[in-house]
């Protein structure tokens, strides 16, 4: 029987959404597998998350240590090596903590490693079949891992259907004392918060979000006019911030803000997963892009193949005429 362990990332005493997505992934790996959540941290925040997890997981391992109060990947990895059995399948999120911690973990555990998994096809013998993407999402690939000596998998957030929290009534096992020596050569200092701009895009119900399709700094005005007509706020994808056309605080994505609007207008955004990682709460997504093959059309509710520079002004005008 496969043993699966899922690492629960959390912040301020609340587990991240991925915690609800691991069960579906585990189910796809092996429906008969045992699934255990691992939560590391310290104090009340940790307890809150552990308790929350007992409603989803039948077994929850808790590792409480002052050194784990902030999830320094070097420390987390050291603790996990001592907790996870050698032949287990370990799941973690493909987020900035997972990317920091997991590759080294697979080395320390001498297990297979597969990163940024978007789907799982199942196990055949000791071979686990999975799907991931390459080249910035332009193509997908089937990959196979030999998990006879265990595996470390990072799961792309949002790829597996979340389970509803219920009454799993999970048991809590405190393995804090098994974590071992947690001294490491990297010291966490502080978090430097992103500069807050003049608008808070996370508070807006409607976002007009622009990407590379805007082409030129001067054209941002066109998006602003549309946003004004819709009573929305302008947000953007990373290239726009890299080009310094808009401030960092307007960037949606894993390296920017996480937004939960009701309506998300993706204007000239191709739809990389890093960008979509910042769009939460299942909004109504309207995608306008002149490239009919843009990945954004896979996730949008409504797609329109047009040049945003032509389309937006007309839409603005029509809305103003209402």
């Amino acid at each position, binding site marked *: 029987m496969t043993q699966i362990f899922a690492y629960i990332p959390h912040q301020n005493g609340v587990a991240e959404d991925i915690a609800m997505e691991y069960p579906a992934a585990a189910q796809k790996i092996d429906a008969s597998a045992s699934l255990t959540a691992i939560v590391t941290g310290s104090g009340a925040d940790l307890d809150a998350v552990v308790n929350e997890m007992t409603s989803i997981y039948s077994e929850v391992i808790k590792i409480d240590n002052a050194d784990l109060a902030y999830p320094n990947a070097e420390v987390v990895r050291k603790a996990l090596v001592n907790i996870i059995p050698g032949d287990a399948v370990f799941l973690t999120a493909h987020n900035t903590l997972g990317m920091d911690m997991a590759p080294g973990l697979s080395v320390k555990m001498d297990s297979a*490693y597969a990163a940024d998994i978007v789907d799982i096809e199942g196990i055949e013998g000791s071979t686990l079949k999975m799907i*991931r993407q390459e080249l910035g999402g332009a193509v997908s690939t089937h990959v196979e*891992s030999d998990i006879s000596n265990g595996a470390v998998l990072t799961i792309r957030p949002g790829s597996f259907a979340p389970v509803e929290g219920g009454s799993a009534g999970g048991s809590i096992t405190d393995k804090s004392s098994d974590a071992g020596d947690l001294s490491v050569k990297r010291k966490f200092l502080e978090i*430097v918060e992103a500069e807050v701009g003049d608008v808070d895009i996370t508070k807006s119900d409607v976002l007009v979000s622009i990407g590379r399709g805007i082409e030129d700094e001067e054209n941002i005005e066109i998006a602003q006019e549309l946003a004004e007509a819709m009573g*929305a706020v302008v947000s953007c994808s990373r290239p726009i911030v890299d080009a310094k056309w808009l401030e960092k605080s307007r960037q949606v994505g894993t390296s920017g803000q996480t937004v939960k609007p009701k309506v998300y207008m993706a204007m000239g955004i191709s739809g990389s997963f890093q960008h979509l990682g910042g769009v939460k709460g299942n909004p109504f997504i309207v995608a306008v892009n002149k490239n009919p093959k843009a990945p954004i059309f896979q996730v949008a509710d*409504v797609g329109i193949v047009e040049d945003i520079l032509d389309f937006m002004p007309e839409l603005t005008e029509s809305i103003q005429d209402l």
Partner: protein
Amino acid sequence: MEILVCVKRVPDTAENEFELNSAGNDLDRDDLVYSVNEWDNYAVEEAIQIVDKVGGNVTVVTVGDDESEEVLRREMAMGANDGVLLCDDAFEGSDGKGIAALLKAEVEKGNYDLIFTGAQADEGAGQVGGMLAAMLDLPYASLVNKIDASDGGTITVGREIEGGNQEMNEIELPCVISIQTGINEPRYVGIRGIRKVAKVEIPVKGASDLGIDGGSVGDAGAKTKRVDYFVPDLGDGAEMLEGSTEEIIEQLIEKLKAKGGL
């Protein structure tokens, strides 16, 4: 400061429209254009800037075939002092760990204070840096978008984390760092720059030079393998609005009204 930067030759995502071959199981590679992985280019620039400030040497290393020499030369034209090509038939088909094991062998031949990789490459796994660090038992920090290398035995690094925030860490040397784009503005390398270093000798090392058992790396040693490429079925994609622009706008406005967008 002795810095080793691990680089990779990859299909250029900015310049390619990827298509599958006629069999549908691999990329159509006839028209692909390759260049140095974008993240690696930032890593080399960062290494050069550090060496410009505190002195030292920058070496670039890659695992690949003869053609990978091209990316080493480009990075040397940027200002890296030396290049090393790890090339052997036995290396083909290596997974992340295989690559990390080869790099480990090369790292151990030198005396590096800092080892850089790009945060990720064409496969989007972001795995080699962390694996290499673990194999070498060195501290590691990924997705680094700021380095302050003025201190002696430690450096301060900023990691780009969720929400656009930056996680500051102090890390002991030697260490492995994976570099995120945007950490600097890489300098331009033209054809002329590459030609200037065209005749510089680049050592090529195989399995025996590295003291590695060919069976432990490459396809034979890989635990994770790519089976094929495919373009996923767009079955449950967006509802595409069609017709004239006016018709599209009319439909869209109805939908937006229904969803609270207006």
